[in-house]
């Protein structure tokens, strides 16, 4: 296990101490709990947006707490849900009287804890709505979207909902925007190597020296097909086909693209991937509004990548274009 860490049990908390130490003007911890992260720049009267999930996916989840983005986040151990109580603390801290929206991924532990937190917040008179990201086309067939896992595409939901809340939209409206983005985003991933959970100490799964797994989840959940690693263009073709067919994305659509690295894949390779994505979209008559390339949702040091497409309309385009800023993500007005 080639990792920079001290005692594996302390990994998450030491990482968080590092994050607070690095970004004291931007992030604060709520209720004295390191794992409850909130923006140090609260905005009065704004709808609060919270997320959360296991650690090990930086910049997901806490990396999107910032201006024009999310207001708070609870994180658990590596790949483990935070507690409902921690979510509740975050909810209390970000509540500005306008209620809160939870946006998180479709994992049973997270769902149970967020639902419970919402219930507890409700008892305290804080109105909470929830939205579960499920963009991973590989994880269940069409028609069973509710079973799909949430992966990198959640970035688009954060970005648009964050901009909507920053514009002053009410809770229902922010939720409506988030739902719209959720309905229009699709992702496929491919993994080349495993990651290592510090407390476990060895690879989470094994994969052959020349193998790839199309559709593997960000915790190593089984994908669609394991096979020999092929040329980048072929791999991209195999990923783009189900993405395009699923929504479907059609001639005349305008999209935003996210080519996401899972941890160990160099940015150079992500651009080799985008090159093919761009040519496929061009061929298909689909216009590209904006492109994000980099690490937006990782699995520790897993090598691999995912491609997300978001179909835009005037409103989501406007919201995506808004400036945003966090210690992990900055964007000027597009």
């Amino acid at each position, binding site marked *: 296990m080639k990792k920079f860490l001290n005692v594996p049990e302390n990994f998450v908390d030491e990482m968080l101490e590092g994050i607070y130490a690095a970004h004291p003007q931007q992030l604060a911890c709520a209720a004295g709990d390191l794992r409850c992260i909130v923006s140090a720049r609260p905005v009065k009267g704004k709808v609060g947006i919270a997320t959360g999930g296991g650690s090990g996916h930086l910049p997901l989840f806490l990396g999107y707490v910032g201006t024009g983005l999310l207001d708070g986040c609870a994180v*658990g151990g590596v790949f483990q*849900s*935070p*507690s*409902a*109580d*921690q979510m509740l603390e975050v909810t209390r801290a970000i509540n500005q009287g306008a209620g809160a929206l939870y946006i998180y991924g479709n994992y*049973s*532990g997270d*769902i*149970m*804890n967020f*639902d*419970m937190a919402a*219930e*507890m917040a409700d*008892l305290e008179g804080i109105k909470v709505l929830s939205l579960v990201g499920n963009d991973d086309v590989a994880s269940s067939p069409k028609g069973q979207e509710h079973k799909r896992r949430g992966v990198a595409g959640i970035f688009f939901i954060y970005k648009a909902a964050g901009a909507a809340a920053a514009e002053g939209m009410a809770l229902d409206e922010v939720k409506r925007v988030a739902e719209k983005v959720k309905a229009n985003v699709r992702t496929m991933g491919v993994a080349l190597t495993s990651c290592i959970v510090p407390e476990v100490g060895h690879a989470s799964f094994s994969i052959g020296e020349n193998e790839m797994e199309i559709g593997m989840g960000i915790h190593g959940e089984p994908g669609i097909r394991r096979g020999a690693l092929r040329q980048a263009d072929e791999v991209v073709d195999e990923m783009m086909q189900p993405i395009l067919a699923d929504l479907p994305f059609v001639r005349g659509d305008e999209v935003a693209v996210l080519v996401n690295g899972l941890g160990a894949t160099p940015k150079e390779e992500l651009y080799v991937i985008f090159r093919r994505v761009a040519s496929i979209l061009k061929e298909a008559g689909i216009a590209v509004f904006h492109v994000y390339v980099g690490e937006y949702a990782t699995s520790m040091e897993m090598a691999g990548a995912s491609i997300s497409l978001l179909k835009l309309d005037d409103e989501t385009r406007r919201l995506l274009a808004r400036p945003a800023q966090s210690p992990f993500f900055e964007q000027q007005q597009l």
Partner: protein
Amino acid sequence: MDSIGKAELVPLFASLRDVFISQRDYLIDLDGKVGDSDLGLTMNKAFLAAYESVSANSADAVGRTLQLAGMAMAKAAPSTMGTLVATGFMRGGKALESFSSIGSAEMSLFWAAFLNGVIERGKAKRGDKTLIDVLAPVSESLGTSVACAATLPEALARAAEAAAKGLDATKGMIAQHGKAACFQEKTLGLQDAGATVGFLIVDTLRAFVAERKK
């Protein structure tokens, strides 16, 4: 004792706490077969926290006290069962908000809400080899007892029997949820760990009420 009042909640939760202390290693063992061996530890934490909450809030109305106990459990034990049991107590407590003590009818309301909370939270159904396979027969049995105007001790005695049967039936099921789901057929023959917790709670209630009756 035909109903559980405000004053009895502290000793009741002390019993629950003690049961889960004594069953700690047994539950660790059960969860270890097709899970991650944490159930004994998390249930210990959960019921210790619940006891402390109930002690601190014993002046409140019963329903409220139970809700707060649920919240304390959620905080102390964010594992699957911790969250489900916490949910159960919160929902059960909410159902009893307008009552000042717990007789057979209230006990039935409590477990019906508890069961619904667990179903809603965990999205599992009967036969999936979970806690629900104990809770559902318990809730049904209590409904029948209310219809037959049974006393609380009688109702709980029958409920505990139903729980034991439900628990035994989990041996014949294949796990569909949580970590055990990965083991599929290999879970056949094993008693579900979470269902065991359900049985223990109900059986502790039975024993508590039976004891006080004397």
